């Protein structure tokens, strides 16, 4: 067995990375719900979840258990049982699939004496893969709406299909500006094309030359995930809950998992394409090399805050949880500070995930702030504003690229 593992290091690494990525992604999805509820609550001067665990930190677990043990009802009138059951599985698997091509750090790193990359697969059409997988996500919503055999579901599904198809065009067009500048479809090479700094200060991220494209990309990305202010498919005042009205128990939860996973993937791709992915924003000079210790400082600070928070917790086991998490973070900080290789390994993921977290914050922030679009406004905005803007961006960028190439 050990002999076989030694002969196939790539295969072993691939399996380990897939398991690790899925575990981290699903945990992130669970805690994104907590983050969203908490943040929206604070924006609206409420407390949000705060009963289950300290600061409601165990709420996602409680929700997961609740959904698993709820009665799973399949309506008697479903048009097609197979399609009805297929839809939530499609939704989850397609939105998780995109993470397979996301690079989390620079090329090959050494782990336990073997060289591997911080990605599951590095294919030279990574960006197209992400676009293809997200474009298939439409089926989950359309089929769920159709197979439920309910007016609300069908209307929600129809709305959502029309919306996703329309905004997919703006999304794809907005990416082309980046492709023109980078000259490649590989996500790793797109990030590498953003390395370096203008006049030694401003990072060469594509957000600066491609600001218009970024706006188009992010707005269409929000619309593609069917989130506020583009959440017409599930407008509760009009459609009860839209395409997932007739789903119960874990199948209902799976649509939610798909939505949150889609948010994470959109944020990851936005950071990769426009914000330099795993690249640090600081110049690579002697003076700025101190910023390598940012992950250490952040982990230590957060750990310290949590340890102080232990005193504010009332119940014993809440104190225990907070103390354990705080000490764990301090241990991570200590490990990173002492082990040079670990610190070097953590740089890429730290910056990429940090940028992603900012985008996730913006996702939640817009949901708490903006009212929902009306349907005709949504269509007019997509087709008459975003698509022409993206096309204009392509034309201008190609002219500039051609002019610079002489």
């Amino acid at each position, binding site marked *: 067995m050990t002999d076989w593992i030694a002969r196939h290091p790539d295969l072993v690494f691939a399996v380990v990375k897939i398991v690790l990525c899925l575990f981290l992604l699903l945990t992130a999805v669970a805690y994104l719900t907590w983050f969203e509820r908490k943040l929206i609550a604070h924006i609206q001067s409420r407390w949000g979840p705060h009963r289950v665990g300290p600061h409601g930190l165990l709420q996602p677990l409680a929700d997961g258990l609740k959904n698993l043990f709820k009665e799973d009802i399949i309506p008697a009138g479903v048009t*097609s049982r197979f*399609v009805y059951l297929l839809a939530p599985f499609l939704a989850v698997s397609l939105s998780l699939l995109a993470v397979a091509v996301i690079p989390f750090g620079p090329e090959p790193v050494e782990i336990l004496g073997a060289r591997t990359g911080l990605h599951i697969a590095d294919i030279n059409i990574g960006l197209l893969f992400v676009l293809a997988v997200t474009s298939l996500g439409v089926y989950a919503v359309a089929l769920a709406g*159709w*197979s439920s055999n309910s007016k609300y579901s069908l209307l929600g599904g129809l709305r959502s299909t029309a919306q996703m*198809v329309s905004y997919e065009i703006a999304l794809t067009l907005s990416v082309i500006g980046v492709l023109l500048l980078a000259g490649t479809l590989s996500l790793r090479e797109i990030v590498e094309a953003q390395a370096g700094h203008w006049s030694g200060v401003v990072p060469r991220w594509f957000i600066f030359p491609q600001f218009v494209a970024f706006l188009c990309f992010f707005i269409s990305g929000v619309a593609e995930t069917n989130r506020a202010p583009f959440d017409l498919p599930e407008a509760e005042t009009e459609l009860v809950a839209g395409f997932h009205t007739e789903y119960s128990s874990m199948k209902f939860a799976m649509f939610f998992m798909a939505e949150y996973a889609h948010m994470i993937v959109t944020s990851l791709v936005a950071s990769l394409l426009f914000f330099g992915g795993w690249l640090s924003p600081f110049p690579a000079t002697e003076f700025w090399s101190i910023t390598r210790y940012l992950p250490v400082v952040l982990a230590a600070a957060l750990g310290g805050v949590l340890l102080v928070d232990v005193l504010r917790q009332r119940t014993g086991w809440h104190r225990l949880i907070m103390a354990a998490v705080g000490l764990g973070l301090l241990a991570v900080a200590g490990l990173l500070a002492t082990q040079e290789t670990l610190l070097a390994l953590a740089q890429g993921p730290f910056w990429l995930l940090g940028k992603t977290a900012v985008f996730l914050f913006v996702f939640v922030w817009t949901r708490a702030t903006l009212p929902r679009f009306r349907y005709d406004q949504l269509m007019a905005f997509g087709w008459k504003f975003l698509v022409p803007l993206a096309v204009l961006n392509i034309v201008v960028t190609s002219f500039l690229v051609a002019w610079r190439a002489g």
Partner: protein
Amino acid sequence: MPAETVLFFVFGGLAVLGALNLVLQRHPIHSALSLILVMAALAALYLLLGAEFIAAIQVIVYAGAIMVLFVFVIMLLNAGEEERTSMSRAARYVGLPVAGLLLAEVGYLLYRAWPEGAVVEADKFLGRTGPIGRLLFTDFALPFELTSVLILIAVLGAVVLAKKEL
């Protein structure tokens, strides 16, 4: 058997099964889903040849765009199950043999007209994204542009027809 051969038969078989299911299913949505399966299997076959770009485009254009519209229209019209009529006598005695004959003929012609070395071996396809784009804008510029004009005309026709109804 090398892994490529196994995968070829898996995805080739999947494509054939999907195509059969497409014809045999009575509900339009099930037929549309089978067609999507066929396209996904074809994309996997392209991937086995090393044509990553074409595989991705196959999924994005056919599965991600065209079939979505198919499903959308089926949903919008709320098309029900098809009625199955018993085969007419003419179809049974003339249609089936003629169809078989046609298939054999096409197979024979393809077999005869096959030039030497025209088969792409697994992972030997050299058409990466860049060369394909260059070909489209040099050698195949005219057919490429003509196709886009054709699609544009179709779109204009659809708009004109829709305007009449409004």
